[in-house]
């Protein structure tokens, strides 16, 4: 195909160096793509649910990560295959949008691909399958809306939020103290949330960790924790009612950006320069002192002399504080970041009730706590744990829980977890399929089957008989229409923790509506994209 002939019968080349490229076309291409997508999904399948297993990832530099967060696994896996990269993107976009359900979305896409393969073998055109999936996904999303519940929460009534966060955390390694972490996450989100605008800026929540101690020591600090200590070892370790000057200029003589030279050619000039230099330091410290600052936080370093002067004038200081942290401190204390000493005024100082240095363990590890800030809208979740990997995994888990809490504040609709929502959708899609006259009917039915994959994986990971359990739950959903719910009973899910009931309302397993909807939509989109590819041209391996 790469070689064509013009009207005179002369050959010309369409694709250069054809023999060096591998090329897959038609059904083969689709099948290869599907199998690549599925093998990614297969990796994540065992990580789904409260009894899901973790993956151990060893990076190119030999660092070890242990996680069961879908997005992290895929990100660290360093995949080579193009289609596999699409799946990685899929999980990442779920992470950006929703923050949770990153594993579920990949598993769902994998099972959609699996079903599509069967249809392809029966000779249905990929575009028809894609269209059928599109229709089905719309049905599923609408149905989710129908079975969703709204629940109320307020500043004082956080129980329902905590329950939802606990569902998220239960699949992570931290499930030992999920209650405590869920409460921390919810409180943190509520502290920074703008309930009227229904918006949460997660940037205001800093998640920091220090190795040592135990997971139960994790705490929420209404303030900022900075991994720094006072610049001079003899400065006070604790400051009450601090007025904080937040500076981005170094305690050093200025370095103008333009190129310049100061020539010294006489003794007088030498002397003058020396005095000048001395004056600089004095002025700087004096300016800070004059506006009433009792603590200086600086992005840059200090000269030894400046350091001593600060200490001498009883003005504690912290140096080398990173830009992001500086901003957070500014937000929390209500101060302004000041780029020049001349612009320092009393109004620009931040206020904090208590600043203290705390040391950990037997090594010289110290951290600076800035608490009781003027504006408590910046908080820190401070994680402790047995080892570095534990801390990293906890950070990821907390991030997921924070995202869930944020989503609930944005939109307080929930669906029930444990695969119940997927089963309900599957039933609804299955029922709707028969109404479509075309070939799409088959695709829609396949979509319904694909939705079953998530509860199936949940059951499998929990050591239950997957098919048996799923069919039991499915029949339960259809069988008991209550008077309140005219339709089916969409609360039945997989009893992963062996509690004894399949009713997810009793087990308090919730997920957010938008998270679930997003999962269905994103998975469908990616599958459609993969199905539409019919030619894969890749350069030869080196």
């Amino acid at each position, binding site marked *: 195909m790469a070689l064509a002939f013009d009207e005179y019968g002369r050959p010309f080349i369409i694709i250069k160096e054809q023999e060096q490229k591998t090329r897959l076309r038609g059904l083969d291409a689709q099948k290869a793509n599907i199998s690549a997508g599925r093998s990614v999904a297969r990796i994540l399948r065992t990580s789904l649910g409260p009894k899901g297993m*973790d993956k151990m990832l*060893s990076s190119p530099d030999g660092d*070890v990560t242990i996680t069961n967060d879908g997005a992290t696994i895929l990100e660290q896996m360093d995949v080579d*295959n193009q289609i596999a990269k699409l799946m990685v993107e899929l999980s990442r976009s779920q992470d950006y949008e929703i923050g949770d359900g990153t594993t579920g979305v990949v598993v769902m896409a994998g099972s959609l691909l699996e079903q599509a393969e069967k249809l392809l073998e029966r000779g249905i055109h990929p575009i028809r399958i894609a269209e059928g999936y599109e229709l089905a996904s719309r049905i599923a999303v609408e149905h989710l809306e129908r079975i969703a519940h709204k629940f109320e929460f307020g500043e004082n009534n956080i129980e329902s939020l905590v329950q939802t966060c606990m569902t998220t955390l239960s699949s992570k390694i931290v499930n030992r103290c999920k209650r405590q972490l869920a409460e921390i996450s919810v409180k943190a989100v509520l502290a920074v949330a703008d309930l009227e605008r229904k918006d949460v800026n997660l940037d205001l929540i800093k998640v920091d960790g220090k190795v040592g101690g*135990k997971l139960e020591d994790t705490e929420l600090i209404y303030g900022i924790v900075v991994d720094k200590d006072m610049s001079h070892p003899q400065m006070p370790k604790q400051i009450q009612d601090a007025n904080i000057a937040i500076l981005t200029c170094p305690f050093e003589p200025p370095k*103008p950006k333009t190129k310049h030279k100061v020539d010294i050619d*006489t003794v007088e000039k030498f002397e003058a320069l020396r005095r000048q230099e001395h004056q600089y330091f004095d002025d700087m410290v004096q300016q800070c002192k004059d506006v009433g600052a009792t603590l200086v936080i600086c992005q840059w370093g200090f000269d030894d002399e400046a350091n001593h002067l600060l200490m001498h004038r009883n003005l504690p200081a912290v140096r080398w504080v990173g830009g992001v942290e500086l901003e957070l401190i500014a937000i929390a204390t209500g101060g302004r970041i000041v780029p020049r000493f001349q612009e320092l005024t009393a109004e620009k100082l931040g206020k904090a009730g208590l600043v203290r240095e705390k040391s950990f363990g037997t090594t010289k590890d110290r951290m600076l706590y800035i608490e009781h800030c003027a504006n408590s809208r910046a908080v820190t979740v401070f994680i402790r744990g047995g080892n570095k990997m534990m801390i990293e995994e906890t950070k990821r888990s907390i991030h997921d829980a924070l995202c869930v809490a944020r989503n609930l504040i944005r939109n307080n609709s929930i669906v029930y977890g444990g695969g119940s929502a997927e089963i309900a959708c599957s039933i609804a899609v299955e029922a709707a399929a028969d109404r479509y006259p075309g070939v799409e009917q088959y695709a829609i039915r396949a979509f319904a089957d694909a939705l079953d994959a998530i509860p199936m994986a949940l059951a499998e990971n929990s050591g239950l008989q997957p098919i048996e359990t799923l069919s039991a739950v499915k029949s339960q959903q259809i069988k008991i229409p209550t008077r309140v719910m005219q339709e089916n009973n969409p609360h039945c899910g997989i009893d992963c923790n062996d509690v004894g009931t399949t009713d997810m309302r009793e087990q308090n397993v919730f997920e957010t509506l938008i998270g679930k909807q997003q999962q269905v939509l994103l998975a469908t989109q990616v599958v459609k994209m993969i199905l539409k590819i019919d030619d894969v041209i890749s350069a030869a391996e080196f």
Partner: protein
Amino acid sequence: MNLDLAKPDPLPSYIYVLSDFLRGQQLFSHLFSSRVSALSFRSTPLRFYLFLVKAELIGWQHIDFGFEWRCTSISHFGMAIERILKDDASEEKGERARMASFVGAMAIADLVKTTLGPKGMDKILQSTGRGQTVTVTNDGATILKSLHIDNPAAKVLVDISKVQDDEVGDGTTSVVVLAGELLREAEKLVASKIHPMTIIAGLLRAFQLCIHVLSLHHYQIAEKFKTDLMKIAKTTLSSKILSQDKEHFAKLAVDAVLRLKYTSWLQGSTNLESIQIIKKPGGSLKDSFLDEGFILDKKIGIGQPKRIENANILVANTAMDTDKVKIYGARVRVDSMAKVADIEAAEKQKMREKVDKILAHGINCFVNRQLIYNFPEELFANAGVLAIEHADFDGIERLALVTGGEIASTFDNPESVKLGHCKLIEEIMIGEDKLIKFSGVEMGQACTVVLRGASHHVLDEAERSLHDALCVLSQTVNDSRVLFGGGWPEMVMAKAVDELARTTPGKRSHAIEAFSRALVAIPTTIADNAGLDSAELVARLRAEHNKEDSNAGIDVISGSVGDMSELGISEAFKVKQAVLLSATEAAEMILRVDEIITCAPRRREDRM
């Protein structure tokens, strides 16, 4: 059986060969590299492996498989495997992944196992770097820190040992051994088809019980504070190189920590900074001593007083070479020699002024972190002031701390700078080296331990041991709960855990039982390392513990079961708690893994 495999057209990229592992390995031994991967194939009754071989490697000539074989090319197999990972990356799944992590973790645990207990042996570590420096140690954290480990699960264990070292300072070996034992037990359970999550649930339940039991059985030390601290120090030191002189060193460590006691209680943290350890080769370990005061490993400048009484000390961090101009872009440009001389004179003048300012503080000792050049040194000598240059940063900080002075960098306001004071500064000799000793310092908490020993290796190990002891003691001072040692806490916990296992329904009880077995492995190892009959001793210990309020533990010295309270073997509660916590957490973490993905190693750029 011979096979003439017709070369299929088109050539598939991979073929599968199904065989048992050993034969497959023989067959493909010359190709056995990353290009051939073995996948376990579970549906066959025997354990068969599927060898995935790059087809071009076989060459499609006459292949003599010589055994029961099945060979199929990809297209016939019906399952096209796409490689989704990069070429050198590898992926291990399910049982194999779990096996890899179990084996790795157990190998690490077995490595340090022999160093456990008072009769534990040491390891020699030889670095691969230049000089091939040798370290002899039996400190778990030090051993593991210096290993190059490829196995990801083993890295988890190394990590917990490091954290244990940072957090409590001791028990670095125990934590790894316990985690290894937990995994060894867990492996058996996994092999008998119990789901890892169920095992984890059991382990966590047992762990919570253990913490509870420990907090019931500890005793507070209040009255016989010092004797109890001595016991703890001795227990810690008994497994180290210092065990011969443990009495001596225990006393040394307790004295040092007790000096800190009051201030560190106030701070709520453990501040070991004011205990300085100086190592001087020569003499024997017994010659090590605790000095109440501060010793600085420096010499006194020539022509300066060797002994100062009632010293006023200025601790400084300032440049005492020619002070450079700090204004950016300044440079000296002159047009004649005379002017150079002028500026040099000005510089000298400047230095003289600086020295004068320093002298204006009314001091008779000046300690600087940076160099002091000959010129200012001479000026100081003329003024009869002792000037010490180039004290390192830690030294400066400690000196400022102990003498109560501040670290100064500017000298314009002599009246407001806090000076440090001490009763006596003198030059002392340890071995052949001269050191400066500051005695009668203001803050009573500071002290210096001078370690003497036959070689650097001995001294290094002695320092590590002493560090462990100091850490444990300072933790105990903060949290005064104490347990008996010699495997006593393990037996108490094992007993309680066993009872729990008996009353727990369901598969979890197997895991709980396993936890108790792992706990017993610690006294077993201690006995084994001492060359004792561990089975006999542990059995007797168990029987002993079935009585009420037993204090029985293993007495390694006499090789029998003894009463720990009489023998005075104690351990800090906090250490045991941290050991349990880290080990359980690590075991849980490794158990939860069902797949290991190793990325392709980062290629080094070829250097020209």
